[in-house]
């Protein structure tokens, strides 16, 4: 299942999560972000129970985007135990992301 992260649920769903969490910072006006959407959806299904995966709209959730210094999208950040441990920028294919986040 793909999660929808917001400024409101970020602490509960991401920072306090027991599983690692992959957050896809995106916006509706960003072309490559739209090409990324089906990749995220597919990964969320495949990695269910291993990694929590979801999207975060930077326009609707400016606090979190600003806190993590997002100035370019798509940006993926992997959180473990409440800390950002890996950042990936720009469009990536599924296997590429899986390889990066499961190492």
């Amino acid at each position: 299942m793909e999660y929808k992260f917001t400024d409101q649920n970020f602490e509960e769903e991401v920072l306090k999560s027991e599983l690692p969490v992959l957050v896809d910072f995106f916006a509706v006006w960003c072309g490559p972000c739209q090409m990324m959407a089906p990749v995220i959806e597919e990964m969320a299904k495949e990695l269910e129970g291993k990694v929590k995966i979801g999207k975060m709209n930077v326009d609707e959730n400016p606090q979190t985007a600003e806190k993590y210094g997002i100035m370019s999208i798509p940006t993926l950040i992997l959180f473990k135990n409440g800390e950002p441990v890996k950042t990936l920028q720009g469009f990536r294919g599924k296997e590429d992301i899986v390889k990066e986040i499961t190492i």
Partner: protein
Amino acid sequence: MLYDVIIIGSGPAGLTASIYTSRYKLSNLVIGKLPGGTITYADKVQNFPGVSEISGVQLGEKMLSQAKVLGGEIVTENVKSLGKNHDVFTVASEYDKEYQSKTLIIASGTGRRKLNIPGEGEYVGKGVSYCTNCDAPFFKNKTVILVGGANSACSGAIHLAEYAQKVYLVYRKSELRAEPIWVEEVKSNPKIEVIYDTNLLEIIGDGSKVTQVKLDKEINREMSLPTDGVFVEIGGIPTSNFLSSLEVEMDKSGYIVVNEEMVTNVQGVFAAGDVTNKSLVLQQTVTACAQGAIAGYSVFKYLKQNKRLTK
């Protein structure tokens, strides 16, 4: 499975090649790293005939779905290397998957050219960007520099000016080389200031974001210019490095040499779009599509002449 053709690249050239080869009843696999290709970075496309205005990503998605509906198989992967054994080509992806075909169409396009100056790599995503369409809204009411002077630079500067309070368009030459329609719009936009005959020497920041750039010429009596962002739109470099094993002929800049039928020097290998030397006249979606169509037809003709069409 032995495909009739494997198309490397999933931008307008590759997808059009897939559309045409599907209609010639050729089995085809499209393998590319960005579905839709470079056009997905364009904010607005206003010169694709039949469509007065469309976003680049929508145009890319339309081509992608048309290619799929007609039977093209599409995978999102980087190609690592190519091989040829008798009449069979093998395409190896970065995940060590292998695909085989009777012919190849190389439509791998271009990657973004970088400035290659100090600070550029360090501040990617922290003020340095290669996509105005993706990142312009992060610079609302800020000052930004855009480097370049061709179509994508000028259209990018106009897009940036919708958000930023000030856009410096820094170009190394004395005259912008974009279509006049873009140049006029740039010059009449009160937020855009063009700085000619000037290069960036270094991008400087405070560790977390860009704060200024060093120039090779004085501006406002200073050799540096304070800025919140640096957008780079200085064209592309052909993605042809994975071709070395096939001995496909390239020009000195790495563009694949093709004739008017999109045929390369290697039997069974065709090329189309921005990666070819023929694209250098005009690198546009419509010309990439045209080349893709021709390459598709050439593959059909080649397989027919060599009696390798599947009955």
